[in-house]
């Protein structure tokens, strides 16, 4: 099952030229780009691992692409995303975030139903991949 998280995730995977254009857009808006990766793609997992520090003060997308390529090379079977962080006072949050790399095979999620008091049902989703220990998931 294809994971859809972040901007553009319902589109086909972006090509490198498209990624570069999006990064350049973020830079032109004054946002600082950063690269993050994870092997636990649960939608509530907001804490992906940072690949290097956020890149403030970069003028051209080629600089960020260096880091994106390095991350994809180091983690070819992980999810990798690029964030555009807006440091404007009062906003100070991620304005743009899109996936730039995904594992070849995405097994998807299991839906667990838990019966509680009064026959009420609680739902929870678990990624099949997350059942493996970290580092062996993809």
């Amino acid at each position: 099952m294809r994971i859809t998280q972040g901007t553009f995730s319902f589109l086909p995977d972006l090509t490198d030229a498209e990624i570069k254009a999006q990064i350049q857009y973020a830079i032109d808006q004054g946002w600082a780009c950063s690269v993050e990766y994870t092997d636990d793609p649960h939608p509530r997992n907001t804490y992906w691992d940072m690949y290097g520090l956020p890149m403030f003060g970069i003028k051209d997308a080629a600089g960020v692409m260096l880091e994106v390529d390095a991350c994809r090379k180091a983690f070819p079977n992980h999810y990798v995303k690029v964030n555009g962080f807006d440091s404007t006072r009062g906003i100070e949050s991620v304005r743009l975030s899109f996936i730039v790399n995904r594992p070849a095979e995405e097994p998807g999620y299991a839906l667990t139903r838990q019966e509680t008091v009064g026959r009420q049902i609680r739902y929870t989703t678990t990624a099949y991949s997350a059942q493996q220990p970290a580092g062996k998931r993809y």
Partner: protein
Amino acid sequence: MTPTTTPAAGTDAAALAVADRVDLHALCADAGVFELLDGLDRDLIGLAPVKARIRDIAALLAVDRARATLGLDARPPSLHMCFTGNPGTGKTTVALRMAEILHKLGYARKGHLVAVTRDDLVGQYIGHTAPKTREVLKRAMGGVLFIDEAYYLYRPENERDYGQEAIEILLQVMENQRDDLVVILAGYKDRMDTFFASNPGMSSRIAHHIDFPDYGADELLEIAQLMVAEMHYCFAPDALPVLRDYVARRMARPNFANARSIRNALDRARLRQASRLFADAKASVTRDALQTITAEDIRASRVFTETAASAADGRAAT
């Protein structure tokens, strides 16, 4: 990058293939190349070989652009450069100009200059160098990376020096991403020659080796006048012959650093002018007095009082 510089594809190519002429002059005028080159001639005194090479490069880039509009193959040329010359011959100034020119010609996308030295590239311990160098390279992408005194990167006397690691990363990026980044190395001629002798890979990846000649006395005078004009000062008429004399004496001294020495001399003349005005501050000062550097401001320099013997001990003139 503008659409004209990317190779035309599909229907565009078919449409363009019909056209068989392009207005080269208009192409350059649009990009503001002529103003840029004229400005270079106006603002930089002397440096004839340097200007000639910059013109060549500008012409090549303009022709490449014209070729691209006609659908001819225009592969981005390698524009890494090496500036060699004595101190104060304008290497950094020209590098700054270079970034602007390459930007105007559509070669460098952003046209900013990142000036670094060994300290910014080479780390202190194992594993520190690569991230540092990559950080600098990332910042310089889309512009010009200016490495001042580049020969310090390689220290042959210490075989465990991390400079070699920085050089290897640089080489890799210079080769693979030459349309993203222009690297300019600068340094003194003899030491750069030893640097290249021990790093043949570096030498062969640099297409343009440009040597900056020393300035003559007349050129230095012109530079001085340009500098005072920029600082909104002017010379009193009787100050010029004194300045000419000063330049001649200064050139004969050790540690003479061309235009940089002139700039320092002017700064000191400004100091003396200020204290002269300050000393008789009773009267109100006129606009003229505030911006005129007189002969005595220059003549007070130690260059005039010291004998040749004491000059040889190598102290900088004040």
